């Protein structure tokens, strides 16, 4: 044995063969590994060459941004008309009330800034007091939003919801849908796993009913059918109606996402808390849900993304969200014909938010994955 140890010679570490590392070999392995792969690469390079440079020329190089009316754009049709977006920005982002009262735009700007400032630490890791930030976001922030955007307090003039629109409306609908659907969805998910047959049946029926109905139908029903059940003259706020419809719809999807998390929690967790004398609510609130929600955050966020995009459907009841407001603006007499710019801008804003949520959920998924492997 001793002899063997003496004769052991430690081999020096060598680099891998140069043909397997570096940029060239990456290209070879990923883009030109086979004939099909090479042909696909060439085809797509050609398509990119055909479409990307002209788009960049139109959208950036030749684009118009100066001036304050359509004359600049009409004189240079080879470029996009961002002047339109610039001039109508208040309308597209904040709706008609703030577009016609530009001195009030600080209100939505402040409201959205506060949201951003709370959101950033919420999605970062290793931030203390996250729980408090979350509670603030869920319970205090909506009040701040109402005071600032709706007004009516502290001498802030009221901006009627009939004049809400643009990104601000999209944001308000999505926020309410998300925040109210979460507790409702949690209750429904618990209900669906309840041992009480009635509760279970009710939850299943509710979830399957709303999941099986398209949002557009729900919004339509909320707008046309609800008033039929009430004496004429009772005027429902359209925005509130949309919020109710969206919340009912969204809660069914949140419920299914939460149920996925609940199913992943070992039965032993419930049994251990039962054995300690904890009742149903304590078991779920203190032991099961904290673990289940953590697991289901990625899928909950995915339902948020879907909802955020679906808010555009409120056009069916005559509300103008970000997309519809861009469209409306591009169809006004002043800017008729520049709807591509409007759609691109709206699409870009949607994309920023959805991509943000999607990256966040992917980051969480990776983190959960490594957490679980570490256990």
């Amino acid at each position, binding site marked *: 044995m001793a002899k063997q140890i003496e004769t052991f010679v430690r081999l020096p570490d060598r680099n891998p063969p140069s043909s397997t590392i570096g940029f060239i070999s990456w290209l070879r392995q990923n883009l030109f590994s086979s004939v099909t792969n090479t042909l696909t690469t060439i085809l797509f390079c050609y398509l990119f060459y055909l479409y990307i440079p002209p788009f960049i020329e139109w959208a950036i190089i030749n684009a118009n941004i100066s001036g304050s009316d359509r004359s600049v754009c009409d004189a240079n049709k080879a470029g996009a008309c961002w002047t339109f977006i610039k001039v109508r920005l208040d309308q597209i982002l904040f709706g008609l009330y703030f577009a016609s009262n530009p001195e009030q735009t600080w209100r939505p700007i402040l409201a959205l800034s506060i949201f951003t400032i709370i959101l950033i630490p919420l999605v970062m890791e290793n931030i203390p007091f996250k729980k408090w930030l979350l509670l603030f976001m869920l319970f205090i922030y909506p009040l701040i939003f109402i005071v600032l955007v709706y007004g009516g307090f502290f001498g802030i003039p009221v901006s009627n919801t009939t004049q809400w629109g643009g990104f601000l409306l999209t944001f308000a609908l999505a926020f309410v849908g998300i925040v109210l659907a979460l507790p409702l969805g949690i209750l429904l998910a618990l209900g669906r796993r309840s041992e009480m047959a009635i509760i279970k049946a009710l939850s299943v029926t509710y979830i399957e009913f709303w999941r099986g109905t398209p949002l557009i139908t729900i919004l339509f029903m909320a707008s046309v059918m609800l008033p039929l059940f009430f004496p004429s003259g009772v005027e429902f706020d359209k925005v509130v109606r949309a919020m109710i419809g969206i919340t009912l719809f969204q809660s069914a999807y949140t419920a299914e996402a939460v149920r996925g998390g609940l199913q992943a929690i*070992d039965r*032993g*967790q419930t*049994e*251990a*808390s*039962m*054995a*300690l*004398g*904890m*009742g149903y609510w*304590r078991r779920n609130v*203190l*032991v099961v849900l*904290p*673990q289940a929600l*953590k697991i289901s955050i990625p899928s909950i966020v995915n339902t948020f993304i879907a909802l955020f995009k679906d808010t555009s459907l409120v056009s069916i009841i005559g509300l103008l969200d970000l997309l519809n407001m861009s469209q409306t603006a591009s169809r006004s007499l002043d800017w008729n014909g520049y709807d591509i710019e409007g759609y691109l801008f709206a699409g870009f804003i949607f994309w920023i938010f959805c991509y943000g949520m999607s990256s966040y959920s992917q980051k969480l998924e990776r983190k959960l994955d490594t957490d679980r492997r*570490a*256990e």
Partner: protein
Amino acid sequence: MNITVASEKTMTSETHPIITISNLNKWYGKFHALKDINLDVNKTEKIVICGPSGSGKSTLIRCINRLEVHQEGSIIVDGTELTDDVKQINEIRSDVGMVFQHFNLFPHLTVLENCTLAPIWVRKKPKIEADELAMELLKKVRIPEQSQKYPGQLSGGQQQRVAIARALCMQPRVMLFDEPTSALDPEMIKEVLETMIELADSGMTMLVVTHEMGFANKVADRVIFMDEGQIVEQNNPENFFSNPKSERTKLFLSQILNH
């Protein structure tokens, strides 16, 4: 060594059984899992339950804190019969500690929080008191230095000792153990058994499902052998091991003692 959780109440009525199980029958669907079980457990008594896998050992002790519902017969714990009354069940459960094979610690809480959760929310203890008691019991199971860690950071043996401390924090009158060492690596079994022996010495009433015959020999007042949902025989450890009455018991003992 005294883990002072079996309180003064224990002393007052030595003769009165703390658990009375009479004519207990339990079915899973159509499967008859427990058949005519009769068992009295006296205060401070230590009972070891053994038997082949699937014989109903877990089912029996899980019936005692109603993790399983029985269909016939009665179980009386500390003077209260187990019924469907949720409030009563929770009261009994808070007085009956349980330790599981797979620990079932709460992974999202620290060791200390695991131990104080139920005392704070069920017993309504002030947090400071709960923390103090928990630290005292964590010292008894010899892991006070781990109190701020999460269960996932501990070894299996340490986790099981936390689970024991967690149960003791409710100051139970009885402790139930369901194969507490069978998910552990051999080198960790000893540390958990030592903790359990100390607990037994402190006067705790214990029902332990285990195949650790050394432990049975050392602490049990009675060893119960179960097979096919029935109690086949029970005796004090000396007689149980040296001259088992039934063939079934002999076979079982030869199997587990000779490997």
